[in-house]
């Protein structure tokens, strides 16, 4: 076999391993190691490479942002910021038709601005908002679907761990990616609110009402969310204005949320240890995939497969828009099966060179940022689509009385809004790039 053939054969081999329940990071590690051994017919090279490979993958200043953002999310949960966000949103929106559900989406968006993970957002807001939704007569399926979809705002609205990984893979500026994610993230929240108002008109019995809250109480509730605004402002603003690097911003955010959690008596030695355990589990999972993907992508680069594929695609003369559509549909389909970070680490090194040579009438940097935001959205849809939508499972586990099939029915409305949004962003790149300096 030529090196290129080895590279091309490795894709189906890797996919088979993944679909046979081999942990994704392990599958990439093994395929990459075997492939590297075959490329030069010298297995000893693999072993020599491993002397530094794991240490250099883990001792990364820019990737240290990942555990810091995860810890920040844990502290935000402990600090009671989810309650104050929901209370503020509910006091303004709760009396409307479907208003408590809209408030849950609003609170998810707020929480997403200080938390870089969808699952943490879904879990935290689910605990706060699900009992309230049920109390005001919202149907189980609708309430669960709202919170599962709202949870995806955790990663769509910056800070976002997926964007950090994308930025590192494609060598883009994290600050600019965060900025570009802002309007699409807010559009997502607006889209979900629209979905709720349509849903409650189609299914009037799915939602109850609650009495309005007096104006002065509304303002007071809104004032109570100042810590969230302060932290979001200093982290994202500070990174953008160049006061500090993204890693420093994450450290400031973790420190700030930790301090607030401690002042609110949410942070004790016991909860701190539990936070470490939660962060450890997610961090180790992500970094093992990073390690496996590093080995696999290093091997692929040796076989020249990514360059050959991108040259082949370009030489076929397909329309750039057709190729982009195929890639996005691919993510939507695979997102039903795989988690978003694995997918990005696995596919960006192959897809990005293809996208990079296509002409969409955008500068290289704008193209990379626009594509990153589109990918971010389509991979996150996978969190709320059956059969393995993790957000659906998390919310479902909190409300055992609701059959998951009911949630699936209601979540279809939210998925539709996601797809409409992707189409809008594809057709009008300016929505994404609007906030960026030209």
């Amino acid at each position, binding site marked *: 076999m030529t090196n290129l053939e080895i590279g091309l054969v490795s894709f189906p081999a890797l996919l088979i391993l993944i*679909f*046979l*329940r*081999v*942990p*994704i*990071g*392990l599958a990439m590690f*093994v395929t990459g190691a075997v492939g590297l051994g075959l490329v030069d017919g010298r297995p000893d090279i693999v*072993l020599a490479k*491993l*002397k*530094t490979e*794991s*240490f250099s993958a*883990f*001792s*990364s*200043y820019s990737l*240290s942002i990942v*555990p*810091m953002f995860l*810890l920040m999310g844990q502290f935000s949960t402990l600090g009671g910021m989810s309650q104050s966000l929901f209370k503020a949103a509910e006091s303004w929106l709760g009396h409307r038709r479907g208003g408590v559900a809209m408030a849950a989406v609003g609170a998810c968006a707020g929480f997403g601005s200080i938390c870089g*993970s969808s*699952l*943490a957002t879904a879990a935290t807001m689910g605990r706060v908002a699900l009992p309230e939704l049920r109390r005001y007569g919202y149907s189980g399926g609708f309430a669960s679907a709202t919170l599962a979809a709202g949870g995806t705002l955790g990663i769509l609205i910056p800070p976002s*761990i997926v964007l950090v990984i994308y930025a590192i893979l494609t060598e883009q500026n994290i600050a600019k990616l965060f900025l570009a994610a802002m309007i699409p993230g807010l559009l997502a929240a607006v889209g979900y609110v629209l979905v709720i108002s349509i849903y409650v008109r189609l299914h009037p019995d799915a939602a109850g009402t609650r009495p309005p809250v007096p104006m002065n109480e509304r303002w007071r509730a809104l004032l109570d969310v100042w810590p969230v605004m302060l932290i979001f402002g200093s982290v994202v603003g500070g990174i953008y204005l160049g006061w*500090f690097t993204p*890693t*420093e911003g994450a*450290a*400031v955010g*973790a*420190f700030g949320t*930790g301090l607030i959690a401690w002042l609110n008596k949410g942070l004790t030695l016991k909860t701190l*240890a539990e*936070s*470490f*355990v*939660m*962060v*450890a*589990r*997610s*961090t*180790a*999972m*992500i*970094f*093992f*995939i990073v390690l496996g993907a590093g080995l696999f992508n290093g091997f692929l680069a040796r076989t020249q497969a990514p360059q050959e594929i991108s040259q082949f695609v370009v030489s076929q003369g397909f329309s750039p828009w057709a190729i982009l559509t195929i890639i996005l549909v691919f993510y939507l389909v695979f997102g039903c*099966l*795989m*988690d*978003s*970070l*694995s997918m990005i680490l696995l596919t960006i090194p192959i897809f990005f060179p293809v996208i990079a040579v296509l002409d969409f009438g955008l500068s290289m940097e704008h193209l990379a940022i626009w594509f990153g935001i589109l990918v971010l959205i389509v991979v996150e849809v996978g969190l709320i689509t059956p059969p*393995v939508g*993790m957000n659906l*499972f998390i919310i479902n586990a909190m409300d055992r009385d609701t059959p998951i099939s009911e949630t699936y029915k209601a979540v279809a409305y939210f998925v539709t809004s996601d797809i409409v949004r992707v189409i809008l962003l594809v057709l009008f790149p300016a929505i994404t790039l609007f906030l960026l300096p030209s």
Partner: protein
Amino acid sequence: MHRFFTGLSRLMAILGGSVLTLLILLICVSILGRSLNTILHGPLFDGALSGVAAWLLALGIGPVNGDFELVEAGIAFTIFAFMPLCHITGGHASVEIFTSWLPEKANSLWGMIIEIVFALVMVTIAIKLKDGMYSQIRTGTTTFLLEFPIWWAYALSLLGASVAAVVAVYMACARVVEALTQRVIIPIAEGAEH
């Protein structure tokens, strides 16, 4: 036995988390020092207060020297220390829907094979990290600013990697016993988080 290894993994996770927290504090102190340093050099301290500024700056107010290097060394330890807990709780992401229709026995056998390969990989990673550490000792490479030997960072990481390898071997043994006796020792954990 399972309680011992779970406890060990949790201990490593908490150790790793503590180092992570120290790094966060270090970065915050460094930012604070850098900001103060900028202010002291700024127009506010230009005139009558320049003596105060000079005095404060002489105390060494400024960014922490080599914070970048400390973060890199510390975060490597943190990540390695986090590995055992993820492994023992079945936290690694995988796609399970295609194997769910397999008979239970085939699934447990296949799970055993995966766990054995995983253990081999983790042991290899730890051994190779040790070799890497010896190379660093031989060449005597130091970091750029603080000039501490890089093998120190390797040694710390090796601690985490070794526990991860031991836990992986324990998990493989447990799955072998399970497959042989058809008895569940460690229930398969729920899906991973990310």
